[in-house]
């Protein structure tokens, strides 16, 4: 007679290790009074271009720095460094997303208490980054008008892991016959109530509102921290 197999209860999150590090990072960011914003999107939707503009616009009034994740090359880090703020590259090799431990390692030589804003540009990918908390205050998901209107329907998970959506390359909307009401409806379908910012890094459309949004969110976070 065979014995019944025994069942051992575990009930643990499989990505526990990442979540533990992310929680530690979040605590450290809170204590250091630094507001952390991460950016996720598919490759080529304009994360680096927008971020370069944001860093340049924030720099006169805030102490700003950025981490940028990439599979290979330091091109993005070099582009971001043109804004004059400290930038550090995290090269992931073959890994398609950033994890909390990589952020922690990259920050080892930086004193985050000296910062007002820290930006984290994730690897261009709309799938895997959604499962990894990086300890950020706000996660932005970017989608460009050239990608069409149905990205939210194809990647609902990333839209649900992010806090705010950003429509980029708005200057090209007419040229590619971008159907904005449909895109907005798709975002609201997968994530009811999601705030959406519309920007063009090229013409500057919506950049003022973007900067105001960041300032406001940071002020709110500080208020709640007190």
């Amino acid at each position, binding site marked *: 007679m065979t014995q019944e197999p025994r*069942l*051992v*209860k575990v009930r643990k999150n*499989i990505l526990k290790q990442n979540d533990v590090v992310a929680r530690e990072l979040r605590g450290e960011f809170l204590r250091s009074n630094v507001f952390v914003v991460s950016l996720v999107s598919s490759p080529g939707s304009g994360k680096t271009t927008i971020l370069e503009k944001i860093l340049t616009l924030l720099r006169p009034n805030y102490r700003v720095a950025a981490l940028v994740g990439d599979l290979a090359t330091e091109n993005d880090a070099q582009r971001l460094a043109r804004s004059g703020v400290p930038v550090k590259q995290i090269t992931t090799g073959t890994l398609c997303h950033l994890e909390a431990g990589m952020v922690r390692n990259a920050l080892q030589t930086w004193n985050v208490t000296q910062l007002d804003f820290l930006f984290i540009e994730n690897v261009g990918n709309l799938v895997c980054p959604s499962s990894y908390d990086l300890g950020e205050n706000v996660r932005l998901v970017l989608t460009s008008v050239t990608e069409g209107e149905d990205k939210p329907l194809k990647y*609902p998970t990333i839209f*649900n892991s992010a806090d705010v959506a950003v429509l980029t390359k708005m200057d090209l909307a007419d040229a590619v016959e971008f159907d904005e009401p449909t895109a907005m409806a798709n975002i609201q*379908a997968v994530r009811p109530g999601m705030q959406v910012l519309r920007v063009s890094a090229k013409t500057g459309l919506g950049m003022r509102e973007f900067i105001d949004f960041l300032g406001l969110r940071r002020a709110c976070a500080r208020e709640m921290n007190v």
Partner: protein
Amino acid sequence: MSLVDLAREEAERVQGRVIALHIKVGRLSGVFKDALLSSYEMASYDTSLQGSQLIIEDVPIVIYCSQCRAESAVVSMQWLCCSVCSAPSSRILSGKELELVSLEMES
């Protein structure tokens, strides 16, 4: 890999050979069942978990509706709305899980 590491750690604690892993995967966890099954086979190869079975429980997306106060599973992840009154809601109660529930051990 995280799953294999966690299961091995737990199995070592209770000692014995693992026959199967019971896990919960939410529809909004970002994990695709078939991909997880095939990558588990690769990740567990040549470890103490080699040959063990991965038993996946699908967790539906359940939302809370502030209009009618119902908790209901959504029909589609492309349309997060209450299946009772059809009001949209993003108050997700479950569906993001990625959890190792239990280990089935050889007795």
